């Protein structure tokens, strides 16, 4: 009897319903669009007629290869940068740990299209670097290594935060046992701590892979000059070049989904090979070790990454925002606050856009946090049949380019027979952000659940707690650190999401990103950069304030 009730635990039902609305509906319409080319006009004529054209594109194989290569290179470089930093942060007393956390959070707050423009304006001939130091690095920037470099600086925080949290949870206790049995410190780390941290590492690398094959801004700005075409740029061209080819875009997106799905299967295979339970309810010694002679080398590494990922892009953004004209360059006479006063004076609708995006960011973080925790629970801890399907639904949006999600949402929610619809209200933006960003909380929460022993929930149930109470009182607090980190990322990305917002924004509504983008389109780069700078400040400060109000000082994220 009890087992039967477990099968329909309310948390699982909520997770399933939420996933259907947020992910399955738009995805279904993308699939339908791929099959029925005239879906937008409400016709199901000529099914599969667009397939041959899109898949027969002679450039397809090259672009798919480039996409895979880009994803793998960004994953490898992100891991190389983030894992040593994360391990140091988790196991040792790194001086200024909280400050480093904040500095590594900021790259995530910098919209990729802004970061890449900042890099271009710094490294191109007569850019900021040449104005200050006399040389330029354009040849490096507009190349495949340049693209990988810029994208890695944007994505490595995902790995850093996930791995440092999981390694911290694993703690040094298991490694200590290995040491007692005679293993060297290095061996104990390689054979015990690192393997036990696999869930966090695998989950975050999967996210990075999916993010980098789906990312549009950087390959579009840098790749075309390097002759490096990827699937996303081809998809965008199909959606923006008249005559619009929605079926072609949908079909190419499905190729992306297949790539991402392959990575997902690989990650799942790694995670299900063995158990990674490290949180068993036993008290844990949280004390961290001293770095000793390694203190300064480690600090230098932290500083170097912080300068490259946070310092330089922020300075480039600030320099542009403070410049009256771009052609005036970095001279004292050319610097003033006119761009900032235009925004704060709100002659351009900037404050309204800020308000819209910030509330959408908070709402998206709450919805995806809740839905992510419930879905991850349903997948990892429940024994519900069909939970594999739920798991697949949570990974699908990861590989869908924002623009395709936007088209799917319009097709789904603009049907004439719907009595009420979120379309043409700000809710459609919320749906878009939730769909695109849901994978983050799900991956983080899944990794956290993998580390929690089943006996904890069982103990709560034995003492009479209902499934919901056990979830709320036992499991949720245990995964809260990981989940909160993911929700902060959702907040940051949702506040500045561009690609879907540009297409799906309701009439008369502008978001931070569409505001910035319009300034760029009109040639007001400085005004756009000033808005970007203010946004980065707010999206960094707000989560920090929330966390310190919640009394989590000293243990950020």
């Amino acid at each position, binding site marked *: 009897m009890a087992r039967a009730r477990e099968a329909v635990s309310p948390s699982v039902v909520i997770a399933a319903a939420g996933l259907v609305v947020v992910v399955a509906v738009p995805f279904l319409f993308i699939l339908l669009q791929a099959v029925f080319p005239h*879906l*937008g*006009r*409400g016709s199901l004529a000529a099914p599969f007629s667009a397939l041959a054209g899109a898949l027969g594109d002679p450039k397809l194989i090259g672009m798919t290869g480039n996409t895979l290569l880009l994803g793998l290179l960004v994953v490898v470089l992100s891991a190389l940068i983030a894992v040593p930093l994360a391990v140091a942060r988790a196991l040792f007393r790194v001086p200024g740990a909280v400050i480093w956390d904040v500095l590594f959070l900021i790259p995530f707050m910098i919209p990729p299209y802004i970061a890449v*423009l900042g890099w271009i*304006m710094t490294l*191109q*001939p*007569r850019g900021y670097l040449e104005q200050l130091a006399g040389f*330029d690095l*354009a040849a490096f920037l507009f190349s495949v290594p340049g693209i990988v470099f810029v994208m890695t600086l944007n994505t490595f925080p995902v790995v850093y935060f996930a791995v440092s949290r999981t390694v911290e949870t694993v703690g040094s206790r298991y490694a200590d046992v290995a040491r007692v049995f005679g293993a060297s410190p290095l061996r104990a780390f390689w054979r015990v701590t690192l393997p036990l941290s696999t869930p966090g590492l695998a989950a975050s690398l999967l996210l990075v892979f999916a993010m980098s094959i789906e990312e549009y801004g950087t390959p579009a*700005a840098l790749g*075309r*000059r390097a002759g490096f075409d990827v699937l996303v740029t081809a998809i965008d*061209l199909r*959606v*923006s070049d*008249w005559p*619009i080819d*929605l079926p072609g875009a949908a079909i190419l997106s499905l190729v992306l989904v297949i790539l991402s799905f392959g990575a997902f299967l690989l990650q799942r295979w790694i995670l299900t090979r063995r158990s990674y339970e490290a949180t068993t309810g036993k008290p844990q010694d949280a004390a961290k070790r001293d770095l000793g002679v390694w203190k300064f080398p480690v600090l230098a590494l932290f500083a170097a990454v912080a300068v490259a990922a946070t310092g330089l892009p922020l300075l480039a953004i600030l320099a542009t925002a403070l410049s*009256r*004209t*771009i*052609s*005036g*360059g970095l001279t004292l006479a050319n610097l003033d606050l006119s761009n900032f006063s235009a925004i704060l004076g709100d002659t351009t*609708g900037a404050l309204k856009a800020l308000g819209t995006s910030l*509330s*959408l960011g908070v*709402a998206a973080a709450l919805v995806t*946090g*809740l839905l992510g925790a419930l879905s991850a629970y349903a997948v990892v801890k429940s024994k519900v049949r069909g939970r594999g399907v739920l798991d697949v639904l949570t990974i699908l949006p990861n590989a869908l380019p924002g*623009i395709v999600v936007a*088209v799917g949402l*319009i097709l789904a929610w*603009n*049907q004439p027979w719907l009595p009420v619809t*979120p379309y*043409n*209200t*700000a*809710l459609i933006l*919320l749906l878009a952000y939730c769909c695109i960003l849901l994978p983050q909380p799900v991956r983080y929460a899944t990794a956290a659940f993998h580390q929690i022993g089943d006996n904890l929930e069982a103990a709560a149930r034995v003492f009479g707690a209902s499934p919901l109470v056990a*979830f709320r009182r036992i499991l*949720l*607090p245990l995964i*809260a650190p990981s989940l909160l980190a993911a929700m902060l990322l959702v907040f940051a990305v949702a506040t500045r999401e561009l690609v879907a917002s*540009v*297409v*799906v*924004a*309701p*009439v*008369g*509504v502008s978001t931070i990103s*569409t505001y910035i983008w*319009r300034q760029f*389109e009109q*040639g*007001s780069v400085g005004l756009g950069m000033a808005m970007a700078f203010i946004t980065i400040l707010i999206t960094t400060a707000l989560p920090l304030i929330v966390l310190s109000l919640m009394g989590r000082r000293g243990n950020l994220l």
Partner: protein
Amino acid sequence: MLKTMLRAGVTAAALLTAGSALADVTVYTAGPASLIEKLAAGFTEETGVKVEFFQATTGKVMARIEAEASNPVVDVLISASWDTATDFAERGWLVPYTSPNAATVPDFLKTETAVAQGVAALAIAWNPASGTPKPAEWADLAKPEYKDLVNLPDPAQSGSAFELVSALSADGMGLFESLAANGAIVAGANAEALNPVLQGAKAAVFGAVDYISLNGKAKGESIEVIFPETGTVIAPRPVMILNWSKNQDDAKKFVDYVLSDAGQAIVAGTSLMPARADVTADRPLIADLKILPVDAEAVYGKRAETLEAFSKVFAK
């Protein structure tokens, strides 16, 4: 915690849905944003009719219309490419309307179903601080002084850039071959091609949309707009009323307003050329420019071939 999260989520959602009722006239436009903002405000002030607008690039506006086609909401469309007006008319999506204010709009800027709001022209945008001699002709940019210093907007992403490429390649791709040999590169859409010139990484844009550069110059940027004597192409920006519109009377009033003295003054204020021949602006007008003939039907019929040949020239 779960309850608080739920409650907060519901509140946020409720807040978001408020205040997004559809307006009397819904305009989709290819920008610039400041233009439609001022036109909407002026129109509402004059008629009391509310305007809501959606602004993006021509491509993104079209993608939205295509995805919405089963249940469209747009009443008035302003595109940056005349091609849209031709194509939509062929599909039978447009309402025939001739505004009384369109009397002084030259014939080549209006049809039964569309009329230009304003006109942009393509030009050389050159940075005088670049240390290069001032170019006068398209072909000048293939000279050694401009080696590696020229950007071209991508004709696959910009309708006007495509027409310029077509007009200048009527006798073959020779000019573009010498540009490519001189290190000129294709650099994204219009704004993307201009920024490196402002900072000085490049000296000139071959085929810049003039009004963006003129606005930059007005703000103090070091940029000059040069219209070659051999001729250039223009990009009229058509205004159209969609036949599914349920507010066609208000939509017609909006078109009237765009072509009114006040509306055309706003157009001139953004450095575009007004569509009406009797409205002046503080910039070179159509009559001052030599316009290269573009046979739209023939040119767009060969679009794929032209783009293919063009990208072959610039492929490394």
